[in-house]
């Protein structure tokens, strides 16, 4: 498991909720959506920090 900070994306609807954009992480895009991830706090207006399972 890794911890990373990612930009938020999504319209805020149930079909398109706000969530981390794993394609555009500040540390470099993951290029994939992790099979498991969860918030670890430190959320800002534009970013979420999450613990995620690497591919």
């Amino acid at each position, binding site marked *: 498991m890794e911890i990373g900070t990612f930009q938020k994306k*999504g319209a*805020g*609807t*149930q079909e398109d*909720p*706000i*969530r981390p954009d794993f394609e555009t992480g500040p540390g470099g895009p993951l290029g994939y959506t992790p*099979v*498991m*991830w*969860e*918030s*670890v*706090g430190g*959320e800002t207006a534009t970013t979420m920090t*999450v613990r995620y399972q690497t591919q």
Partner: protein
Amino acid sequence: MTYHPLAETHDTGEAYWERLGILGSSTGMAPIISANKTMPSVDAYTNNQTIAITDSVLKYTLTGGNANREFSWSLGATYSKVLAVSYFQWGSTMDLQGLAISEDAYTGDQGNPNYMDNYIRFMAYSYGNEMRLQKRVGGSYTTYGTDTTIYPEIAAYSPAYALAVYAEVGDPGVQTGWIKFGSTSQWFQLFSGIEGDLTTGFQTVGVGVGYTGGNVGRMISPFYVWGAA
């Protein structure tokens, strides 16, 4: 220390929650809803569904066209932390089942498909084949965790499974979801998310039951809710 749950509290997981320090005399948590056998009537609901309670089973059927449906129970007071536990059975091939803890109070026919707001919800979500921890605040949805490696069998006659969700107000607040499969399995935690918008206290426990007209599902006792002021 070996964990040996008592038979009489195995399904609700009380010994497990006490071991985690969520329940127990020092926590201030007390039962609010204790449906060990007969499911309680709902206090509020979306109107395009039928809800039929037969002893331990609350069966819902989504009537009319496609739209989200919910139903909920009032907690009768405001609580700073709440733990909700219940069993579910998936009755269709696509939809969602989610147990939510909301800061708002609701009574009667709400009409609006998504009437519950300001909540944290732990749910099985077939559209993504995943478990999801999700918040709705001010009408906007934010996902705080997903897991595509484990979720209930999505089929009309799938086995019952159970969800548990715990929420604690604050900034940061704590929101945790557990799942349980089969009558003899133990609870295990999937998510422990952290967010900071739910800060005023909880008044409702509710269920989101999906979108597709004609779909059927069941909520099955034991259905327990504990809370502390």
